[in-house]
C-alpha cells in the first residue's frame, strides 16, 4: 500500500497565502525570513516587491517567472499589506489529514494511526508539486518501506539519509525527527500491524491541534475508542482472532461486497492491531497471538443502529463460516444510545 502526501508549497496554491489567495498583479510579497522552503512556480507573476526566504528556492516551470508590474496592473492590488507566504513548517508528517491512502475505497476508512504511513507503506511525495514536511519531535524515527520524492525512490537507508542531508532534502524535510526506510513490506496475507502505536500521541496532537487539542464530544453514550483512534466514536467494533489461513484483503473485500451494500451510510476500517490487554476472564485466550483483526463500524450520518446490526451479522458470519474465513473467534462491542435522544 502507498500513502500520498497532500499539501504543497506551490506559489499558486491559495492556501499557502495570508487571506487565502495568491498575490494579485502588482502585489508586494513576503516570504518568512528564517524558513527554508522550495516553492514551485508554474505561472508568470507581476510583483512589485518580494522578500525572499534567507534559504530557499523558486523552481520555475517552463513559462513561469516574475515581472515588474506595468501601468495596467490591478488597481485594487498592492495598496494593502504585503501578501504573506504562510509558515512552510506547518505541515507535520504525523498529521493524518495530510495523507491520502493509495487503496482508498468507498465505504472504507482507516483509524487515525493508520492514516499516517505505516512501516510497510510506500510513501509518495508528488513530483509535480513542491512540499515541506516536519518530521516531528524525534523520539523515534518514522519508519516506512520506501520514500519517493523528486522522482527518486529511496529503498535503502543510506540513500535516503544522503538525500535528507542534501540541500534538496533539507529544503523539504525538517525537524529533529528522523525518517528511515527498510525492508518492511507486508508479506503476511493476514495483514501487518501498522507500527504507529508509539507515535499516536503526536498523531493525535497534530490531528486535534485545530480543535484546541481536545476531542469533540461523541454523539452517543458509552462511545468506543478503537485501537489507533484519537477520539471516541459511535458505532461498533468487532475483534477477530485469526488463524494462519486468514486473508485480510479477502475479508475486507467480503465486507465491502457482501455486507456493506445492505447498510447505507456505514464506514468500515479493517486492520491488524496489537491486542489490547484484556480484562480478566474474557474470551480470546485460545489464541496465543498478540495481535487481532479490528473491524471498526461507524455511521457517517445520524445514528440508525446500523453499526450494531452489522456487527451482529459479522458475528453470525464468523459462527457460520469461521473456518473458511480463517477466523477462530469474534467479539463485538457497541456504543450506547445517541446523546440527547430524550431516552
Amino acid at each position: 500500500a502507498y500513502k500520498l502526501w497532500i499539501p504543497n508549497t506551490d506559489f499558486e496554491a491559495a492556501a499557502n497565502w495570508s487571506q487565502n489567495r495568491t498575490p494579485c498583479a502588482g502585489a508586494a510579497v513576503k516570504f518568512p525570513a528564517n524558513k527554508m522552503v522550495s516553492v514551485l512556480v508554474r505561472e508568470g507573476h507581476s510583483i512589485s516587491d518580494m522578500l525572499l526566504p534567507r534559504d530557499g528556492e523558486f523552481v520555475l516551470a517552463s513559462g513561469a517567472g516574475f515581472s515588474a508590474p506595468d501601468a495596467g496592473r490591478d488597481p485594487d492590488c498592492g495598496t494593502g499589506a504585503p501578501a504573506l507566504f504562510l509558515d512552510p513548517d506547518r505541515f507535520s508528517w504525523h498529521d493524518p489529514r495530510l495523507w491520502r491512502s493509495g487503496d482508498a475505497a468507498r465505504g472504507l476508512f482507516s483509524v487515525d494511526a493508520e492514516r499516517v504511513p505505516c512501516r510497510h507503506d510506500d510513501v509518495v511525495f508528488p513530483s509535480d508539486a513542491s512540499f515541506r514536511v516536519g518530521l516531528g519531535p524525534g523520539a523515534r524515527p518514522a519508519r516506512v518501506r520506501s520514500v519517493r520524492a523528486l522522482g527518486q525512490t529511496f529503498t535503502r537507508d543510506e540513500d535516503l539519509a544522503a538525500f535528507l542531508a542534501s540541500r534538496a532534502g533539507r529544503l523539504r524535510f525538517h525537524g529533529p525527527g528522523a525518517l528511515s526506510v527498510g525492508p518492511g513490506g507486508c508479506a503476511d496475507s493476514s495483514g501487518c500491524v501498522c507500527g504507529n502505536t508509539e507515535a499516536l500521541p503526536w498523531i493525535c496532537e497534530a490531528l486535534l491541534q485545530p480543535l484546541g487539542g481536545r476531542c469533540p464530544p461523541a454523539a452517543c453514550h458509552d462511545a468506543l475508542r478503537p485501537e489507533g483512534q484519537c477520539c471516541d466514536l459511535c458505532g461498533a467494533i468487532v475483534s477477530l482472532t485469526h488463524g494462519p489461513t486468514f486473508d485480510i484483503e479477502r475479508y475486507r473485500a467480503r465486507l465491502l461486497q457482501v455486507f456493506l451494500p445492505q447498510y447505507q451510510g456505514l464506514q468500515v476500517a479493517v486492520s491488524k492491531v496489537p491486542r489490547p490487554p484484556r480484562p480478566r476472564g474474557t474470551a480470546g485466550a485460545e489464541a496465543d497471538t498478540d495481535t487481532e483483526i479490528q473491524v471498526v463500524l461507524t455511521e457517517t450520518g445520524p445514528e440508525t443502529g446500523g453499526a450494531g446490526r452489522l456487527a451482529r451479522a459479522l458475528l453470525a458470519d464468523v459462527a457460520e463460516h469461521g473456518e473458511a474465513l480463517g477466523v477462530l473467534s469474534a467479539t463485538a462491542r457497541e456504543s450506547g444510545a445517541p446523546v440527547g435522544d430524550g431516552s
Partner: protein
Amino acid sequence: ETGGLELQRQKRSTELQQARMAAERGNLVFLAGSAHNIEFRTGSLGKIKLNEEDLGECLHQIQKNKDDITDLKRSAVGLPQNISSQVHQLNSKLVDL
C-alpha cells in the same frame, strides 16, 4: 471573442514593456523591456559571480586592459615615430658624408 484577442494583444505588448525573469524550457531568461532595465545589486561587500568568475574583477580587468592599451598606444606609436625620425636624420647625415 474579439475583446479577448484585443486583451491578449494588449497583454503581449505590455509584456514587451515589462522587465521580467522567466523560465523557457530550462533556460533562465532575463528580459529588459524595451525601455526598462533589469538590475542586480549587491552591498559593498557582496560580489556578483558568473559561474566561477567574479564579475567585479572582470570589470576591473577590462578597465585595466583599456588603460594599458592607452599607455601602449602612446609608447608604441610615440616611441617608434621618434626613432623613425632619428633614423631619417641619420640617413641624411650619411648622404651628406
